[in-house]
């Protein structure tokens, strides 16, 4: 069965610090990987996605993620965070079946100190 693990439940950083949020998945077939962000009081927004090709994907707002197949990982990074990055971040995966559901990780709450 598909599953997604996010190692950090709550991360607290100061502005301008670098960020890396861990994500590991388990799935036997071809996967599509996503990072979603949920700002306080708002809905899920797609930050970036990986389907195939270059394993380093760039998303919105300066975020990037690297797919490492051998480690079943898809970690999210940002070189310098801002206070406005305070949000909940969800790693997610789905397979390539025709109506494939998305499986979400438990989320990482990111708090940025101004």
């Amino acid at each position, binding site marked *: 069965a598909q599953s997604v693990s996010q190692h950090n439940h709550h991360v607290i950083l100061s502005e301008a610090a670098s960020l890396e949020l861990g994500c590991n998945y388990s799935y036997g077939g071809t996967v599509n990987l*996503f990072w979603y962000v949920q700002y306080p009081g708002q809905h899920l927004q797609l930050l970036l996605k990986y389907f195939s090709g270059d394993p380093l994907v760039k998303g919105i707002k300066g975020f990037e993620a690297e797919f490492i197949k051998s480690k079943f990982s898809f970690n999210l990074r940002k070189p310098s965070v801002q206070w406005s990055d305070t949000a909940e971040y969800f790693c997610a995966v789905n397979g390539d079946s025709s109506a494939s559901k*998305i499986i979400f990780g438990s989320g990482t709450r990111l708090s940025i100190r101004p």
Partner: protein
Amino acid sequence: EPEVTQTPSHQVTQMGQEVILRCVPISNHLYFYWYRQILGQKVEFLVSFYNNEISEKSEIFDDQFSVERPDGSNFTLKIRSTKLEDSAMYFCASRMDQTRTEQYFGPGTRLTVT
């Protein structure tokens, strides 16, 4: 840019009552989904819908739940007899077609069962 919309934004109901949550997916999308997020927990898949029938459902989606696409634009989730544990944020999502796995999420309906 087209968006998934959901109404109402907040629904309060008494235990045992029926509720209908409404969604308008993006107009040319073919796959529709419902997810829910209990406060403080991860987003969980409920059901996927394609070609006017359920294509997959989770264990959560028991006989108390049903989905319908009553016309060409709406996609509804009905809970027949609500329980306290149904209190959650319910997200609708849509996806264009089989070749594109990205799902677009609506803003959610917060359901509070008292």
